[in-house]
């Protein structure tokens, strides 16, 4: 357990020292969301209608931006070899990487999402549901992403292939996530959508580390 925490701690420390992962995905997220009002015009009704979808799609894309580095950095400097032959099972190793990725690249997006929601004229209920849905749904983005990252580790320019592998698998999260916010805006009950999101997340929690570990073994052999 202490090894698990050490590994997560190391990745978080590295992310903040290098700074690029956190600021990159965060500024990408903000810029995408800010571009939309410029593109579709400043009508408040239109913005409120497309707001939930815009925020979710922007979150998916920003998450994707840092995904390819999840194992790549460790692969390039030889750390991945040492981690794989170390005492932690590969599945647990993947889980540690996923947690570090979520904390450094996705959590900052969730923190800033309410402010961006306001700028898209989302009502208070919608913003609350959005934050909750992001918190429940986004761990899946890192978990599913880990599978793609594991399969493309060691590939030059694997990032594009990674997007093609992973984005289709993000569709359920997008659908349930947007549905939750829409329901909240329409004053309907949000809970079923959140349950569905939670279900997908739990499923990914089981499948993700297993599949990513198998992918890593495949890529490294």
């Amino acid at each position, binding site marked *: 357990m202490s090894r698990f925490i050490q590994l997560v701690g190391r990745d978080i420390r590295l992310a903040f020292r290098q700074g690029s992962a956190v600021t990159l995905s965060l500024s990408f997220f903000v810029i995408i969301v800010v571009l939309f009002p410029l593109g579709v015009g400043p009508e408040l009704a239109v913005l409120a209608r497309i707001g939930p979808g815009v925020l979710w799609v922007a979150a998916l894309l920003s998450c994707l931006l840092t995904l390819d580095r999840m194992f790549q950095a460790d692969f390039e400097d*030889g750390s991945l070899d040492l981690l794989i032959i170390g005492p932690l099972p590969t599945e647990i190793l993947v889980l540690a990487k996923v947690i570090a990725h979520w904390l450094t690249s996705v959590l900052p997006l969730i923190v800033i999402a309410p402010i961006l929601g306001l700028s898209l004229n989302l009502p208070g209920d919608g913003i609350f549901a959005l934050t909750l849905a992001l918190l429940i749904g986004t761990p899946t983005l890192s978990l599913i992403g880990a599978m793609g990252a594991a399969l493309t580790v060691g590939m030059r320019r694997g990032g594009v292939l990674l997007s093609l592998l992973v984005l289709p698998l993000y569709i359920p999260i997008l659908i349930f996530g947007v549905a939750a916010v829409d329901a909240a805006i329409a004053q309907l009950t949000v809970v079923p959508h959140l349950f569905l999101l939670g279900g997908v997340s739990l499923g990914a929690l089981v499948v993700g580390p297993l599949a990513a570990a198998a992918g890593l073994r495949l890529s490294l052999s």
Partner: protein
Amino acid sequence: MSFIAQNLACQRANQLIFEDVSFTLSAGEAIWVKGRNGAGKSSLLRICGRLLTPFRGHAEWQGKDIFKDYDGYVGQYHYLGHLDALKHAMTVRENVRFWASFHGTANVAMALEKFELQALADTPTGMLSQGQKKRTNLSRLVASPAKLWILDEPLSALDRHYITLFKERLLRHLDDGGMALFATHQDMELDRVKILDLDETAS
């Protein structure tokens, strides 16, 4: 305490690199793997470090297959490869401490001292020269004890002083009942070392 390799064969990209490589390593022994470029030195070491599965043959640690029943083998060896496994944004001390405690116990201060790294302890490894990076990596070996050292080119980028120093550490390790399996192109006078020449076994 023994490591036994039997009839190992390695295949990369549908080409047989070596076959029928067998050796036994017991406590206090070292094996120097020699061979021309591409003879499969690194591949052999990676097989012994469980990073590559052999095409044929098997390897045992304490009588147990290292690929099927590896629980007893994990944590008993250090693998040091071509890549330095150092994070450039972290200091020498942080890097050594992370790997040592990930491996098990950490005796970082002693390890840094053994390779004369105290003055560099708080320097980010991104600022180090190749030789200094190598020493940081070597200090990993002593920061947490392991019976078997698998070393791929441990001497590259080291100057004469540190080669001597490394030899002392290696001999101390063997005296304490450790084992070593290493490949290097540099000449190193070392008694008690067996030589495994991959050119002779190659077909």
